[in-house]
């Protein structure tokens, strides 16, 4: 873990779970796996608080535990999982676009709570939806559980590893920690539940306590019936989301490079191989052009001939997103996922160079990238940039680690005069460096946002107070004049200051989300490259 990553983890943990959890979490990230007492001792935190913090972290899948020798349980933080907290808004928004509001709330609840049972999720989401609906309307449990099943069927949700049932017949003392087992077969199997009922409004159920809602409430919550899916917890399958993000990125890249129709063909191919191809595979399963033709979305009027032309065109493209793997079935095509990710990562690097150092640097960078190894003199010549400027640019990129230098000595003494100096781009290490910078900038963005809010703490509190008072006055039916009077408690300059703050915070927040997009691309590329090696 680099310092930048640890810093970012610390900020994220603090924002999500408070300072105590942050202290424990960061300690674990720094030191690796540790037993309970050592954590408490090293962080100088009371055992009770350490336990609470660990419970929270384990519940949110941020810490794993393992039983070691002599029954010592060690806890290990999942740094990369902590960093995923940045992407929560994107996960939730993606579900909204795919599965509308119900899906959105299901994923939101699961992300906020770490893991939940299906019945709990359905109940909570139905209640929340009912609260936003008009009076008299309610959300049916069945509808929510249908959405849940759809999400599980498409692998966006998955079961958490199961804790073994504690049989009383077990001889000997119980183990210090349960061993969680995952059954691959049941990963996405939704338990058969008969969830009947409707969402309830918090307010209305209090008002007509004697009415129907009350009766239902007793039926579902107060009655201590054994919950049918007790112990079966669900979590959000982040990998599946990443696969979706990757597919979206590939589709939009194809759309930018060629046209809408070709992107639609690629989208169809990706959708067909969604379930059949594991998310980490470098290629999709081969698909014949006939199959692709049949699977094209209805209403997309292109003839088989046009499709074949498009496929040939895509396969001939130098970016090699699509490859031809055979001629049977009218031509077999695969999507080269690794190559696609590599192209996207390289494009990201190029655009970073362009925005940071200008287009002439970007020209040199692309040149070195294309020719693999170049001597300084060759760079100057090929780029057609005056020698002095070219050198300056080259050295600038070298010092920022975008370009690397390879020495090839002619003699064993490595004398500089008898050595070739070849400039080259190591995409993997450049991507790593850029990723590290992204983490650093997100951490900086968060710190700046916290600073801005802290600076204006008093003003923010005041405006919150005023808003609260106005809301309560409105509820009691105050006059317009009175409300205006209270509103004027915030002066014009204060209002202006608040607006500036809001604009700044919005900008910082939006930047965080968008830098994370780059983080996703780079991480996927690095991960995919590491798997190939």
């Amino acid at each position, binding site marked *: 873990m680099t310092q930048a990553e640890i810093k970012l983890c610390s900020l994220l943990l603090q924002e999500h779970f408070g300072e105590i959890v942050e202290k424990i979490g960061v300690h674990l990230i720094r030191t690796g796996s540790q037993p309970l007492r050592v954590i408490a001792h090293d962080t100088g935190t009371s055992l009770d608080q350490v*336990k609470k913090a660990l419970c929270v972290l384990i519940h949110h899948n941020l810490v794993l535990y393992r039983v070691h020798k002599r029954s010592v349980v060690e806890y290990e933080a999942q740094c990369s999982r902590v960093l995923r907290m940045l992407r929560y808004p994107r996960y939730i928004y993606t579900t909204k676009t795919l599965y509308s509001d119900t899906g959105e709330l299901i994923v939101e609840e699961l992300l*906020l709570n770490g893991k939940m049972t299906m019945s709990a999720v359905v109940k909570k989401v139905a209640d929340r939806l009912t609260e936003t609906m008009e009076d008299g309307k309610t959300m049916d449990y069945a509808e929510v559980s249908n959405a849940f099943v759809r999400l599980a069927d498409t692998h966006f949700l998955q079961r958490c590893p199961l804790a073994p049932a*504690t049989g009383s017949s077990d001889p000997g003392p119980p183990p210090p920690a*349960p061993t969680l087992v995952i059954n691959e077969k049941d990963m996405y199997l939704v338990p058969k539940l008969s969830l009947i009922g409707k969402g309830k409004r918090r307010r209305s159920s209090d008002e007509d306590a004697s009415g129907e809602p009350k009766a239902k409430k007793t039926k579902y919550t107060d009655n201590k019936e054994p919950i049918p899916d007790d112990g079966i917890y669900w979590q959000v399958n982040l990998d599946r989301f990443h696969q979706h993000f990757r597919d979206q990125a590939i589709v939009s890249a194809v759309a930018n490079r060629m046209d809408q129709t070709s992107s639609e063909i690629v989208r169809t191919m990706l959708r067909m191989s969604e379930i059949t191809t594991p998310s980490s595979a470098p290629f999709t399963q081969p698909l014949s052009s006939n199959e692709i033709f049949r699977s094209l979305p209805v209403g997309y009027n292109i003839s088989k001939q046009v499709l074949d032309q498009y496929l040939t065109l895509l396969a001939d493209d130098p970016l090699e997103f699509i490859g031809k793997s055979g001629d049977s079935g009218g031509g077999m095509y695969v999507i080269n996922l690794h190559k696609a990710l590599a192209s996207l990562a390289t494009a990201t690097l190029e655009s970073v160079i362009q925005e940071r150092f200008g287009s002439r640097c970007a020209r040199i960078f692309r040149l070195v990238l294309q020719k693999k190894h170049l001597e300084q003199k060759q760079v100057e010549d090929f780029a057609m940039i005056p020698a002095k400027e070219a050198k300056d640019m080259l050295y600038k990129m070298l010092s920022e680690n975008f370009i690397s230098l390879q020495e090839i000595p002619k003699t064993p003494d490595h*004398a500089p005069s008898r050595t070739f100096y070849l400039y080259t781009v190591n995409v993997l290490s450049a991507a790593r460096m850029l990723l590290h910078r992204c983490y650093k900038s997100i951490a900086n963005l968060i710190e700046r946002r916290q600073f801005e809010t802290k600076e204006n703490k008093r003003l923010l509190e005041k405006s*919150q*107070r005023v808003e609260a008072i106005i809301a309560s006055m409105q509820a009691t039916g105050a006059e317009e004049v009175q409300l205006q009077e209270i509103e004027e408690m915030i002066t014009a300059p204060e209002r202006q200051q608040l607006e500036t703050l809001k604009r700044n915070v919005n900008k910082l927040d*939006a930047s965080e989300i968008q830098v994370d997009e780059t983080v996703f691309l780079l991480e996927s590329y690095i991960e995919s490259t590491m798997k190939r090696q």
Partner: protein
Amino acid sequence: MAANKGRGRAAYTFNIEAVGFSRGEKLPDVVLKPPPLFPDTDYKPVPLKTGEDEDYMLALKQELRETVKRMPYFIETPAEKQDDIERYSKRYMKVYKEEWIPDWRRLPREMMPRKKCKKADPKSKTAKAADRGPSLANSADVLKKIEELEKRGDGEKSDEENEEKEGSQKKTKDGDDDGDDDDDAEQEEYDEEEQEEENDYINSYFEDGDDFGADSDDNMDEATY
């Protein structure tokens, strides 16, 4: 190369012209300070992406940030909880956190709060200590109660009553009482788990008894006035 050495010229092991400096040109100064914290950039950053999805995600992010603070998983430091000034508006902004009981089956056994009762003890002790202060101050009340106490001769019961009455008189004590009640509720919840444990529960029970004895001793002292 060899001719460059000595004679005032910086000695480099390589041909300096190769890196772009002509003969006799002044080399740049050695930099001895760290680069500036906010350096001037040659190129200004491009504006952020805007659009409906970006706006929605921004709203989601800010909403999530507020929501997580209200989740039971957000553990506040004790210092944050107590505010020196009690603000009127606090009542409007109060956050209600749901209880969260982890599924102990999924957690290592050492995670269970064994010492819950012990932890609750010092709190109640201080609460009682705080009670005693004011009760000594208005001694008239105390004397009345002591008389009652003597009549009944049942130390334990009257002691409880003593507390109850004061609770109704002293508004400030309400907070403490609430806290105690919460603790009791928590204890009850945890009891189930603790009965599975070894005799931790019994230990703390005895300690509780000790405390009680100490308290009644104090009361005896008062009675001798």
